[in-house]
């Protein structure tokens, strides 16, 4: 089992900080970012295994960030969060190599399950 290295990206600070705290409570170390640019810099300095990424963000949008990650850090698994709930985002994301997608509001257990699956997939690569 690898060391948990998860990056949580969402423009709603309240959302990311609270979610990060809940994940940490469950023993999953998480870093957070509220901005696409910042997230990319963080990935560059210390690549995580899993990125949980919100689709709709001001500035650099989720899909754009996803594209850069897939271009530069092929191994990183991305779980897409869609506020839109639109399957279109999901399908688009799937085409772009996203690992999976979830709809907000989240079920914490479902998220942890997905993260676990992504970690395993990361390990198998």
């Amino acid at each position, binding site marked *: 089992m690898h060391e948990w290295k998860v990056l949580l990206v969402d423009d709603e600070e309240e959302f990311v900080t609270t979610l990060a705290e809940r994940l940490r409570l469950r023993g999953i170390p998480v870093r957070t970012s509220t901005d696409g640019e910042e997230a990319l810099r963080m990935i560059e300095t210390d690549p995580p295994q899993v990125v949980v990424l919100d689709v709709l963000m001001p500035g650099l949008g989720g899909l754009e960030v996803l594209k850069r990650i897939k271009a530069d850090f092929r191994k990183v698994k991305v779980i897409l969060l869609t506020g839109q709930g639109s399957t279109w985002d999901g399908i688009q994301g799937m085409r772009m190599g996203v690992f999976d997608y979830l709809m*907000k509001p989240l079920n914490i257990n479902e998220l942890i399950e997905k993260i676990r699956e992504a970690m395993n997939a990361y390990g198998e690569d």
Partner: protein
Amino acid sequence: MAIPDWLKKLNLLHMPEEGGVHDRYRILRRNMIILMILITLIPLLLMAFVNYHEYRSALKDEILNPLRVLVNKTKHSFELFLAERLSTVSFISSAYTFEELANENTLNHIFRVMKREFRGFVDIGLIDAKGIQISYVGPYDLKGKDYSEQSWFHEAQVRGSYISDVFMGYRKFPHIVIAVQHRTTTGQTWVLRATVDTEKFDDLIASMGLDTESDAFLLNRSGVFQTPSKFYGDVLEQFPLNLPPVSYEANVLELIDTKGRDVFMAYAYFIHPAYILAVVKPRTDVLRTWYTLKSELAIVFLISVVVIILVIFKLSDLLIRRIRESDEKREAAFREIQHTHKLSSIGRLAAGVAHEINNPMAIVNEKAGLMKDLIEYSADFPDKPKFTALVDAILQSVQRCRSITHRLLGFARRMEIQIEVLDLNDVIKETVTFLEKEALYRNLDLRLELDDDLPRIASDRGQLQQVFLNILNNAFAAVEDGGMVAVTTWEKDLDTVAASIADNGTGMSEETLKHIFEPFFTTKGGKGTGLGLPITYGIIKKLGGDIEVQSKEGKGTTMTVYLPKKPKETVGG
């Protein structure tokens, strides 16, 4: 040409927009009929009117001409008769001397010859210049009578001859007097006077060959009958009608006689004596041909009118029905477009709202989740169960919001349709498995009557599951515990398969039925989103199918879904 007010009020060419739909077509139909009747019947009426008058005048001339000819002919006969008598008297007064005529023997001889050669002479007498009757042959004893004061004597002296009006004389027969003055070269004058009975007048009138309804008679200029009339009076009585205007040529008048009959009176004035010959014929008689023709004309006219009106009514009905049908088709298409438009704008709005709500809801979710975590992870939290319950309540509410926003988004999303060849029975069986637990729990009679030979169709499995799940959910909601829901499939025709979901639940009112496919219309109170059936409807339409609902309050509802075996070209856009 000024348009009359009543025509303006009718406003025939205006298509009324206001008023009930029914009224609108009724008024349009009325206007059409009036307009068509006007433009067809006015020329027809004009033609009929012109024809009627043309025919009438032509026929009248043709019928009345013989009457004129007859009057002229008879008038000539009368004139000839009188002229003959006048000539005879004139000849005698010229051929004999005063002395010869004054001799009663000679006069008697002459009178006998006259009576033999010419009919109608009754007596003859010689009157001298002083007006004294010198000699007389006849049935009366008039010798020596003084005529000097009598007007006919003066007239005969002034004009040379005189023919009297008819008078009742000897043996109570009508007579006329003919008097001729003679002047010798020596200046001696005398008057020869003869009386003629008018039997010959009756013969002349009888020779006209008139029918029983017709009448002919002679009048003098004061309107006194000179011959008896069948209908208007006897000899010497007064003619009861006004005398016709003077005309020496035969002329015809139309008038109403004393018996109230419409008659033609053909007449001619004599120059000398001052008689009027008149023939009276009833119009009905004269114009019998015309009346026959007229009634034929009227029948043809009436039949034409009836046929025209019938055709107009039929035609108008047909036209109005066509217009109405095409209007209704247009309206239906318009409603369809409007409905689609409404759905799509509501969809966009719903998506926006759902998204905006989802983000704060996610925060609430995480915050409450964290609270729960903190309560659970701390061993000695005061009132732990109460707080746990409170947080759970918050989380449940978030969950409810989540399901609502997700359905809203589901309604709005434009998913690509993924067509695959599938067995509709399989799709239904799969969908039913989601609900089997509920059916069991509520003791529902869930019947599957699926056609084993149902052909496979090309459609979208996921979307169809959504459709049947929605309809089955509604059916389950409608029935009481222990109720029945039956799913049936069959092949409708070469291009279509059908699936119906019938329940014996509460059913829907007419009013509800009208709205079930409208977004946000719900009968489930707070529990429903009002999006289930609009989504269902949208999906079925997108798949090229159709949905039909039959429902009776208290009896149950049957929803039938028709799906094409092959999707239409437009599907998948």
